[in-house]
């Protein structure tokens, strides 16, 4: 430590000396400020976040990642803005634990709101440092200096100027920022630097294109599945036919014809490795295994919701002032003139990412073990691999490489653990990729749920009591964090005991009712360990299902009180920005007030419009869905979606719009198709036939996006906010079209045809 401080003092003293002898007109001398070598990563060091390269460009080191919505470009814009550099000269290096501090990875749509804010503050501090260096070198006062495109010049003597590159290019800042002591999403830094006034923004509000698009289309970029190392082996798992079963005996002679193949078996973990990928696939299929007799762990799917209703609660929770005064809730309902109640049911859903997860681990017990992963948490996943392999966290480097899609805690976190187990077992680098049945069938699921909503009305139809209750499987039967092997499928298979989080969630909106009570109960998992129905985060965790229930019920109450659904919301929503999104969506979509389902028909085709609204960590979204229901086939087509979106200041309108379009279409898929099927023994949704998603022919015909830009409000996340209300808007539109109130999803032809019109 002392040595480090001494070296820093030495270097900064040298820098000052150089500045003092600098002659006018030779500002282009090689930079000597800062450090020649990057100091070790430390959240307190400015150099951990940002550097000026020899050519005057800047690189920001992002401990989060972009999962394909352009978060890194948004961050580049934020950094460019504070540094007064063109965005074309700002680069973002992300998701490598060797180059960035742990900002929590891609998590909760915090890439811009948290991760970006930290890098923005670091950029402002870097600019402050650079201006101070320039003041010394040019021998002028710092407040006489202005910065344009990385050139610092004197306002009074414009010929006095120096570039960022000339000051410190290729060297490292040797100063500190004020760190809040946290890692992960909550990591934040501050500095004395004054942030730019939003009225002076030039880079915000523009739409530079993403940098990963061309490599992805030209085929010049690498995915995690494309990582190859010398001597690397390919691995595949052999999964049990009945969830919970373990191998009793393994007949290795059944695969002896395959060259170089090896069986890896530790408790329930059974897999094969081979030098050739196809050989590993073949061996995993040919290997003869005797499995333990085990009780079929699951209830019959038709009894799923009855099972949840009847299961004992192992954890209760909720929100709001009435958690402590439940009696007041009962009183309010007792005093109501009329009580309306409805129950909504939502199935398990699967990430079903485009490709099964893949990870490569190069286990080096006496050096640095490296993990290449498509996971959203490369830093934490590296810690998890270290724990699994009995290494120290600093002995594992986690490197994120774009993966085959990820929408939260998908199977990527498990693949990292599997690759680590394989690599340690064979002492060689191993590439593990799951097969499709594992991706869809064995990946983490969003938890199935039952939501019961009650409203108490007075004699004038005013809502005087509101109770929203969820009973569901755990929100985080496996944590999304990935730093603990107990939260991985393959960790559990080698015997690490699971430790569920036991938590759920509540609706997010600003409805104001006299008594508003939000509560939940979590029920036990049907299979304790290594379950293909273990639950975790799927894009906008719990959002689609909770708000399906909430916003469907809001419509039910509106119609029950002879109100128009838009007017009803505007009446009870208390936040002006929330009202603005509802208003904007209604206006843009040409909403016609109604107090009952309109049931517009043209032959067999019924057409309807439905609204839903929700908030998510400061982002508010209202959507009006227009659907067509083919009353003969029962098929629903999402025709048009009008989305009004307020996430504070808009950084990149084009990328934000496309992020919203993706959310709408993915949510439509979840609304009309997605339901994890299972029998008593195992999950039976194992491919795209048994877990269908939205087809190209079913894409929304039109998506209109209204971006409400709040110039003076810092940016909130936009990765998930518009996922949240879509399912409910579709349900409400189906009701408007047909008079069928669907209280169980997804909205398949069977359910439409089974509904009473």
């Amino acid at each position, binding site marked *: 430590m002392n040595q480090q401080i001494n070296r820093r003092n030495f270097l900064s003293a040298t820098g000052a000396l150089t500045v003092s002898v600098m002659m006018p007109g030779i500002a282009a001398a090689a930079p000597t400020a800062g450090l020649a070598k990057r100091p070790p990563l430390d959240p307190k060091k400015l150099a951990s976040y940002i550097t000026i390269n020899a050519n005057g460009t800047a690189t920001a080191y992002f401990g989060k990642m972009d999962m394909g919505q352009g978060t890194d470009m948004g961050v580049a814009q934020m950094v460019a803005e504070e540094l007064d550099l063109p965005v074309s000269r700002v680069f973002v290096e992300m998701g490598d634990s060797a180059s960035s501090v742990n900002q929590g990875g891609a998590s909760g749509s915090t890439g811009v709101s948290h991760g970006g804010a930290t890098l923005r503050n670091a950029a402002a501090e870097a600019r402050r440092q650079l201006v101070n260096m320039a003041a010394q070198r040019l021998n002028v006062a710092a407040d006489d200096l202005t910065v344009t495109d990385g050139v610092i010049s004197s306002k009074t003597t414009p010929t006095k100027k120096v570039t960022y590159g000339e000051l410190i290019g290729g060297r490292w800042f040797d100063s500190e920022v004020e760190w809040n002591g946290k890692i992960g999403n909550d990591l934040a830094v501050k500095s004395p630097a004054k942030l730019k006034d939003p009225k002076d923004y030039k880079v915000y509000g523009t739409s530079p294109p993403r940098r990963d698009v061309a490599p992805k*289309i030209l085929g010049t970029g690498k995915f995690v599945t494309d990582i190859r190392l010398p001597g690397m082996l390919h691995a595949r798992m052999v999964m049990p036919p009945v969830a919970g079963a373990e191998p009793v005996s393994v007949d290795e002679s059944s695969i002896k014809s395959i060259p170089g193949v090896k069986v890896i078996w530790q408790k329930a973990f059974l897999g094969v490795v081979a030098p050739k990928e196809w050989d590993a696939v073949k061996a995993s299929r040919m290997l003869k295994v005797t499995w333990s007799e085990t009780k079929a762990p699951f209830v019959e799917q038709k009894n799923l919701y009855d099972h949840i209703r009847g299961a004992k609660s192992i954890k209760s929770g909720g929100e709001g002032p009435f958690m402590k005064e439940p009696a007041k809730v009962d009183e309010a309902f007792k005093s109501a003139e009329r009580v309306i109640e409805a129950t909504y049911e939502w199935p398990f859903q699967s990430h079903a990412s485009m490709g099964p997860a893949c990870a490569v681990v190069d286990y080096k017990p006496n050096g640095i073990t490296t993990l290449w992963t498509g996971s959203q948490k490369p830093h934490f996943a590296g810690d998890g691999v270290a724990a699994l392999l009995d290494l120290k966290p600093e002995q594992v480097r986690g490197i994120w490489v774009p993966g085959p899609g990820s929408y939260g805690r998908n199977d990527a976190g498990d693949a990292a653990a599997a690759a680590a187990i394989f690599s340690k077992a064979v002492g060689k680098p191993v590439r593990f990729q799951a097969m499709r049945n594992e991706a869809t069938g064995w990946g983490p699921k969003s938890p199935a749920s039952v939501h019961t909503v009650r409203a108490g009305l007075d004699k004038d139809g005013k809502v005087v009591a509101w109770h929203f209750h969820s009973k569901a499987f755990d929100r985080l039967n496996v944590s999304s964090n990935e730093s603990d092997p107990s939260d991985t499928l393959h960790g559990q298979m080698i015997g690490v005991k699971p430790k569920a989080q036991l938590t759920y969630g509540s609706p997010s909106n600003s409805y104001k009712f006299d008594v508003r009570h939000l509560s939940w109960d979590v029920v036990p998992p049907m299979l304790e360990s290594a379950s293909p129905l273990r639950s975790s985060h799927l894009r906008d965790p719990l959002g689609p299902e909770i708000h399906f229930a909430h916003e469907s019920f809001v419509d039910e109450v509106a119609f029950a009180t002879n109100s128009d659904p838009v007017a009803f919301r505007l009446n009870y929503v208390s936040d002006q920005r929330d009202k603005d999104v509802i208003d904007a969506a209604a206006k843009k979509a040409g909403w016609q007030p109604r107090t009952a389902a309109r049931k517009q028909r043209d032959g067999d085709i019924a057409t309807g419009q439905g609204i839903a609204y929700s908030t998510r960590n400061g982002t508010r979204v209202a959507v009006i869905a227009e659907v067509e229901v083919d009353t003969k086939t029962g098929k629903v087509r999402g025709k048009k979606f009008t989305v009004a979106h307020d996430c504070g200041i808009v950084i990149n309108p084009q990328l934000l719009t496309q992020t919203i379009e993706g959310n709408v279409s993915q949510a439509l898929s979840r609304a009309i198709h997605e339901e994890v099927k299972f029998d008593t023994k195992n999950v039976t949704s194992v491919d795209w036939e048994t877990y269908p998603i939205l087809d190209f022919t079913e894409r929304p015909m039109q998506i209109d996006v209204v971006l409400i830009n709040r110039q003076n409000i810092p940016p909130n996340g936009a990765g998930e906010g518009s996922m949240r209300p879509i399912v409910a808007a579709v349900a409400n539109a189906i009701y408007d079209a047909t008079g069928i109130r669907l209280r169980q999803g997804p909205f398949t032809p069977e359910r439409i045809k089974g509904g009473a019109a």
Partner: protein
Amino acid sequence: MAKIALNVDGKSHTINADPDMPLLYALRDDLGLDNPKFGCGLAQCGACTVIIDGQAVRSCVTPVDSVGKGKVTTLAGIQKNGVPHKVQAAFIAEQVPQCGYCMNGWVMTTVALLEKTPKPTDKQIEDALTGLKCRCATHVSIMRAVKRAAQA
């Protein structure tokens, strides 16, 4: 195991492989051509698509010895003299991909479509692209890009 000759992106190769091994593994594992992706191994998603003699083909279910003298084209082989194919240019201009893992299938299938039907109707585009999967749900961007490519 057998010696199998393949013509891929204008180059001849001979590999030593199981005749029933899917072409996908020959391309990726033997030839290091990584653009065809493993998505399902069941011909249900299209991420592994290559073009063989003008036809979009799912390489994950195509036995390698069935290719014969067929000329295989991968995503890496559709550029001419370093200039992106017009379908690639359109997909880039429309900023289509999110995770991007499926894009190989959409681009290659669109290339095959426009070879046969340079000015497709919306219905012809849907008929060609139905069945391909995009889990990030970029379908509306894909439609814009295909139309842009058809107009180029």
